[in-house]
């Protein structure tokens, strides 16, 4: 399967050439561990140059020439990154031995390569999870597969899998299909009766072969039959539409439910890789398209096929010559419609682009309306929207221009065929009835009526490809999520244990992308009930440490222990229930304050909610609202201030009664008075719990028994405030900077004050 990807999509060697591999294994007697491809040279031309890591040496191979480098020598590995081109160089004492140039496509492999080479060069044993071929192919394909996950599902398989959702509703499906077939067959009856009416009543009566009363009585019977066929046809159409619409809704409901439930089981890695809008549209828009497909698509196509085949049989049966004139051009017409569909698809693509441009303005301006207004940019935004709106209209008009000119032409072609039928039929209509070429008026009228039924099924079949494409794409997007499994490893016999709150990190390595380590061997210990602080610059890995405690991600090396138990052995739901996080900008759901405080603890009595809100210093401001605890906080709690949201989230944490509390910059985004209130609330909340506090303001960590200074994924200093100040290292630097900032601001304020006076 991977080979197909390489050949079809990547235009790159599937594996290390066997001759190269053989040379290393036989001539150098080395075992290949890892390899990567350098696809550019220093002039930025496409080349193929391999770098292979073996047990004892590493090798650079170009055009069959092998250059090898022994691990006994100490090398330095450097990479210079450009926008598209990168350089990986191997040096000894600052002297460049060789350089490999590569595009971003090879980036993952080169990052891994650098890590392995550095480890090997330090004399460490490197254990790789896969064989070199798999590592190479995964490294190259991972980005594509991430964006096109489970693409091994062929379109036909997707459609087939989708149809399996019909299984629980077989009865409805059978009734719906029965209705569709019956309506189609019955729709063939009226033209036949019309022909009979002419041939068996009108003409014999005009010729004097049939009396008036007899003609009228047979005529009324046939009209009755005609009326019955209309009624029956509409009845079966109603039956089909009702059953299939309901069936489509049921399947869309099942898919939405399955999808939403499955989304709850997926880990944060999945959410980090997907856009929220994309996930939402899969649950809403894509399931809606599936309804369309089930309710109308499947049956419409089926009916169209049945109608066309039925019409062809009837027409040829009525008159072979005229029947063939009418049916033989049908494949050409369908092909023309199909080609038109392809053209329309390109036009729709342009519409889609222009429509995205238009909606981009909306999603920019509506959430940022306050900025727009404060910068007085309403005119500019109206103009921007106006231009894109105009562009979108132009594209849609192009679509309308195309189809409005195509369909009349198509209809004209069908009518031309009809004219041909007429011109062939007239001489036969006026000939003697004894002539073999003779065709009766009734037969011909029936023929004309059948001809009129030809255009609709042709149109439906012509659009089938596009419709099938759209719905299978939607189904594919849904199945892609359903097929995604949580990457969190699940140990057998997981433990559900009341935690005391002791946390230990042992040489923890972690990487979000599987390549660059965000945490590089982090080790520390927190006793149950102890408070520690994490400080360091943004992006140093502080928040990552807390996310790993919650097991939002699995670590790539080392061990995390809670009360001496490996994190992976603790039952996930149980673990998370005992850890609470208070964020800088807490998330509140659209709902009442009560709902938000009681989130996850819906059964707790109301008095507990009030008690928690009081401890969180939230009770008073909540009662200031008209509806008190029943006040709706709006989407993401936007109707509340940052400090109010913060205190509600603290109340929520209090109700949860966690053993481990994580404070992620909990007081950094509020004014001094609010900070005091939040700090008071936090002091009550932290009592008796293990607390891991991330803070930029070092003053908020005075109660911490230990402070860890994190820099570039490593703990560079650890100790109490006093100990760290004595070290004169990173912590002291941070402290001095903050003092300086404080003095600067204080001085500025004082100065400003004097000026005011």
């Amino acid at each position: 399967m991977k080979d197909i990807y390489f050949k079809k999509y990547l235009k790159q060697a599937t594996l290390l050439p066997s001759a190269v591999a053989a040379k290393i294994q036989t001539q150098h007697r080395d075992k290949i561990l890892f390899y990567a491809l350098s696809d550019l040279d220093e002039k930025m031309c496409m080349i193929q140059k391999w770098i292979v890591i073996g047990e004892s040496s590493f090798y650079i191979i170009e055009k069959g020439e092998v250059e090898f480098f022994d691990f006994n020598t100490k090398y330095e590995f450097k990479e210079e990154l450009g926008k598209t081109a990168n350089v990986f160089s191997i040096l000894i004492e600052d002297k460049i031995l060789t350089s490999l140039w590569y595009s971003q496509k090879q980036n993952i492999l080169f990052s891994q390569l650098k890590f392995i080479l550095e480890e090997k060069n330090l004399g460490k044993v490197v254990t790789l999870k896969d064989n070199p071929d798999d590592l190479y192919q995964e490294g190259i394909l991972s980005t594509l597969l991430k964006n096109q996950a489970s693409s091994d599902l062929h379109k036909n398989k997707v459609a087939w899998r989708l149809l399996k959702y019909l299984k629980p509703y077989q009865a409805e499906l059978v009734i719906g299909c029965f209705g569709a077939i019956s309506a189609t067959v019955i729709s063939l009856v009226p033209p036949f009766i019309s022909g009979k009416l002419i041939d068996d009543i009108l003409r014999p009566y005009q010729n004097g072969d049939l009396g008036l009363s007899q003609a009228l009585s047979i005529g009324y019977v046939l009209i009755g039959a005609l009326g019955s066929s209309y009624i029956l046809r509409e009845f079966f159409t109603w039956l089909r539409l009702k059953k299939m619409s309901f069936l489509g809704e049921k399947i869309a409901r099942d898919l939405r439910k399955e999808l939403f439930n499955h989304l709850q089981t997926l880990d944060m890695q999945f959410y980090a890789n997907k856009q929220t809008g994309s996930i939402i549209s899969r649950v809403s828009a894509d399931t809606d398209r599936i309804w369309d497909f089930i309710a109308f698509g499947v049956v419409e196509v089926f009916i169209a096929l049945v109608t066309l085949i039925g019409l062809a049989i009837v027409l040829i049966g009525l008159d072979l010559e005229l029947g063939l004139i009418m049916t033989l051009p049908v494949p050409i017409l369908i092909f023309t419609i199909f080609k038109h569909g392809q053209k329309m698809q390109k036009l729709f693509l342009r519409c889609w682009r222009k429509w995205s441009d238009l909606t981009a303005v909306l999603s920019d301006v509506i959430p940022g309306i306050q900025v727009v207004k404060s910068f007085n940019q309403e005119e500019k935004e109206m103009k921007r929207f106006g231009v894109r709106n105009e562009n979108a209209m132009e594209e849609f008009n192009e679509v309308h221009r195309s189809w409005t000119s195509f369909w009349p032409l198509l209809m004209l072609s069908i009518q031309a065929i009809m004219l041909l039928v007429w011109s062939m039929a007239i001489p036969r209509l006026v000939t003697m009835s004894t002539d073999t070429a003779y065709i009766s008026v009734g037969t011909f009228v029936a023929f004309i009526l059948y001809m009129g039924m030809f255009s609709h099924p042709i149109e439906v079949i012509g659009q089938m490809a596009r419709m099938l494409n759209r719905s299978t794409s939607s189904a594919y997007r849904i199945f892609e999520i359903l097929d995604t499994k949580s990457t969190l490893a699940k140990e057998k016999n997981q433990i559900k244990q009341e935690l005391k709150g002791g946390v230990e990190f042992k040489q923890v390595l972690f990487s979000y992308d599987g390549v660059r380590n965000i945490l590089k061997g982090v080790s520390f210990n927190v006793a149950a009930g102890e408070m520690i602080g994490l400080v360091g610059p943004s992006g140093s890995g502080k928040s990552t440490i807390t996310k790993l405690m919650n097991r939002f991600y699995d670590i790539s090396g080392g061990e995390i222990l809670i009360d001496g138990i490996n994190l992976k052995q603790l039952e996930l739901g149980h673990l998370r229930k005992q850890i609470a996080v208070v964020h800088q900008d807490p998330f509140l759901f659209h709902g009442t304050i009560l709902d938000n405080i009681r989130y996850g603890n819906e059964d707790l009595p109301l008095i507990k909610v009030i008690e928690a809100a009081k401890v969180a210093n939230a009770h008073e401001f909540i009662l200031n609202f008209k509806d008190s605890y029943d006040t709706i906080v709006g989407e993401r709690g936007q109707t509340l201030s940052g400090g109010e949201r913060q205190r509600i989230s603290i109340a929520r944490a209090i109700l949860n009664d966690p053993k481990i509390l994580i404070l992620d910059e909990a007081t950094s985004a509020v004014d001094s008075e609010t900070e005091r209130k939040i700090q008071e609330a936090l002091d009550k909340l932290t009592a008796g719990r293990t607390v891991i506090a991330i803070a930029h303001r070092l003053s908020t960590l005075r109660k911490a028994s230990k402070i860890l200074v994190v820099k570039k994924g490593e703990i560079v200093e650890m100790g109490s405030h006093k100990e760290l100040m004595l070290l004169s290292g990173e912590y002291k630097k941070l402290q001095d900077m903050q003092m300086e900032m404080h003095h600067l601001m204080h001085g500025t304020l004082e100065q400003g004050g004097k000026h005011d006076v």
Partner: protein
Amino acid sequence: MFKLEDNMALSYLVEKIWCAVEVKPCFPLTDVAHFFSVRNDDGAELLLIESLSDLEKEDQPIIQRYLNFKTFCFEIIGLYQVEEDFGVRHFEVKTKQGDRNFQTKLDDWPKKMPNGSFLITDLNGDEYFISSLEFGSKLLASYVE
């Protein structure tokens, strides 16, 4: 004063000490010819260059060569095929550097540059530049016009 190694490692002489630096264009899309920030390993700016002509004469070709590497992207001069598959668009192209296949997301459209050219960024982050639509305009029309 700047020094550029063959492996594109750039150094800048600060108080008689060679310091590893990178030069970043401030406006790589809007105005690639002006405003370059010279930053050290910690990301601190050592120098802001408004135009390469402001540099010493001997430094100009060094920085130009360095920027050629830093801002390099493939130049598309021919288009064989554009195909859409579930969630991804596949391009099979001829570039000045050789034939290449790459993929973009379906809703990632080529960016129109101020000079009228187009820039495509693929799933891996490789960039492709189209200066003229004379070739393959039929295939590309839906994506760029």
